[in-house]
């Protein structure tokens, strides 16, 4: 599979999402026509970047939703495509999201990993919201069709240098409940990714950025990689653009 296939799947899902705009998404069916319960759509290409490291990579992270104040359908996708080789990772998530507290959403749904091979599906149970001190948190547990469980927690923060120049540190931790041989994943903490991106908001919706990203496999997962002669860590310089509408 190529990078295009991954993005095509994401595209098809997005079209399905936009087409799938049932009144059920408004805050309650009989209220669908109410002034204060309109449906909105949101699409954010949070990262679309070129990574210069040991291998040059095109990496993306995007999400979109359609819905009302309390109930939404989300689509999330992320992945990496190594320029000279192939798509390393490509995943798509489709989620139902419900506001369970003022600043927290419960998200349940499915995830399909186009890459790495062998591709597989997961059920997702997650929460997304704003923690005290303005940390944006997205945490999810995944259970695959093979029965193995994993978890991912992402945290992001925004620091304003000026009203338009914004530093965004991020951290992503991946955990596995058990070893998954086919994917070379060991149990425990499997992968860490730290990022630091500085963007300039030309307008709120469009911001080019530069930054660094550091990824490292951890624990048993790192051992698997070493045994295969692969790098366990990579520091990359990134340049990309973020936009939403």
């Amino acid at each position, binding site marked *: 599979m190529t990078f295009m296939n991954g993005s095509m799947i994401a595209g098809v899902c997005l079209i399905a999402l936009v087409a799938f705009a049932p009144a059920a998404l408004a805050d309650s069916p009989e209220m669908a026509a109410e002034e204060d319960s309109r449906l909105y759509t949101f699409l954010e290409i949070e990262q679309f970047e070129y990574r210069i490291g040991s291998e040059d990579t095109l990496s993306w992270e995007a999400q979109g939703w359609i819905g009302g*104040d309390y109930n939404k359908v989300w689509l999330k996708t992320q992945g990496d495509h190594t320029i000279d080789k192939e798509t390393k990772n490509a995943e798509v998530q489709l989620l139902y999201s419900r506001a369970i507290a*003022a*600043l927290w959403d419960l998200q349940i749904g499915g995830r399909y990993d186009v890459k790495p091979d062998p591709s597989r599906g997961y059920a997702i149970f997650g929460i997304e919201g704003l923690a005290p*001190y303005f940390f944006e948190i997205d945490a999810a547990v995944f259970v695959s069709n093979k029965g193995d469980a994993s978890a991912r927690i992402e945290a992001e923060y925004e620091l304003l240098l000026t009203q338009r120049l914004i530093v965004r540190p991020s951290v992503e931790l991946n955990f596995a409940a058990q070893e998954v041989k086919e994917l070379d994943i060991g149990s425990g903490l499997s992968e860490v990714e730290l990022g630091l991106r500085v963007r300039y908001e030309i307008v709120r919706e469009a911001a080019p950025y530069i930054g660094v990203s550091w990824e490292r496999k951890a624990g048993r997962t790192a051992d698997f990689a070493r045994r295969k002669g692969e790098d366990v860590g990579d520091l990359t310089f990134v340049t990309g653009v973020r936009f939403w509408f």
Partner: protein
Amino acid sequence: MRKKKGAPIKRGLLAFIALLFASATALAGEYRLVIDETPVNITGRERTAMTINGAVPGPALRWREGEEVTLQVTNRLREPTSIHWHGVIVPNTMDGVPGISFENIAPGETFTYRFTVKQSGTYWYHSHSGLQEQSGIYSPLIIDPAKPEPFQYDREYVVMLSDWTDENPEWVLAKLKKQSGYYNFHKRTFFDFFRDARRNGWGATLSDRLAWGRMRMDPTDIADVTGYTYTFLINGQPSKANWTALFKPGERVRLRFINAASMTYFDLRIPGLKMEVVQADGQNIQPVTVDEFRIAVSETYDVIVTPQEDRAYTLFAEAMDRSGYARGTLAPRPGMSAPLPETRPRPIRTMADMGMSEGAHEMKPGGKAPAAEDPMPGMEHDAMGHGDSISDGLENGAATRMSSEEPPVMHGPDTHGRGNSMVAMAPRSRLREPGAGLENTGTRALTYADLRALEPGYDRRPPEREIELHLTGNMDRYIWGFNGKKHSEADPIRLRHGERLRVIFVNDTMMEHPIHLHGMWMELDNGNGEYNPRKFTINVKPGERLSFIMTADAPGAWPFHCHLAYHMASGMMLDVMVSDDGEKAHP
């Protein structure tokens, strides 16, 4: 000597021909209004506005108390519309609110409003459909009294303030739903931290930042929609057009201020002139002389000024968040202008705005709450810099804002659910405060405590019951409401026809909300007893607890809502049902 009724109101470039069919003597007036789309160019870019008789604002209507008015309103838009007579006591079916008191005016249709005018003063009228008011459907409405007024003036002008955006208002709302801080370009930065730390100390600055971070609230959030997209207008004209009102030195000039903005509170002053406030929300008050006043969205204030010198005076209406201003000129001759005053520092939210009781703890031992009459309590505050420093929130500011006599009332255990993201732990009366950014300006600014009705209220019965309403919001999701519920989720308030009741507002949000009741008066309880002022809009400050008393003397269903257009569209509205068996359905 006062001028003849219906003296021409000066209008400029974007002006219109007012359709004043009523003569001063006839007691039956016929008016025709056409709602349409018209090209306008306010910012240098061609846009389409929604207009009344082809203009923004529409024609100033002038009625007479006792007149039976007939208004034919024709809709030439491609969508339904409505006209609401803001502040005017009319029968429920003539109130013009779609879905509550009438259907709406369908495209191509004409609706005839007919009612007898029972009051006088300065009002306005506007569309109550969607965000059409933001698109241009608003206009002044002046009602001349049957009896002579208790004050004199030589000439008068209507000064209608508004905010215009070149964006489609629906997009503005969609942006707020996706990123509520979209229009705020005055957030605190990393470098502000060091600047504040140098001024106020590292410890204080850090604990301030942590306190706001813990709450996930932004102290620079003064206005949801700002000068980033807004152009502020006086009588439909941007500042560069310099709307001018003429006077002869020594004349008493009555200015009828109307805030027809969708989202913007204005701070009004005319440097070099004292303003004598004679009416609030169309009602006579005991005159108060001030240097400045804040006009909440949808309020009206009438002031009299007496320029003595043969020179121009700037009429300066600064947006509360200081992101822009509207400007006009009072001048003895056309074409004159006076210097613009310096724009003042932006206010910043304090712990008092969060309904915290910190203020009380911060007061120094032996210190007493400053006297309410003192317009400038806490003089040392000025030396600390201005409203954009944290000193405002943590040290002197807290003390200077502790100007209410009433102790805070602790918030109950209800946090109002997912539609609300904070509660005011210790809300208290803030009627004696002029509002954020006006505390330490060195000028005398009007406060709600200054408003004393000229005549006692018509219903002296004490209230039989109380209703407490919490103004709530979720800034992150951009949901607004009462008691944590949007309009579509909330049960109506049921009142028994004729009952007298007290309504208590607790503002659990960190924003000001101008709450407007249709069909009935609200008597703001500002401690003046039977001289409490009656209002059609009551501004509730962040973290404030206040109350009004009302008589449910108008049967039918009435809207009760925040007049910030995007707050109302996001749910900050309730239905009030007044019927003969009202109390059965409500505790």
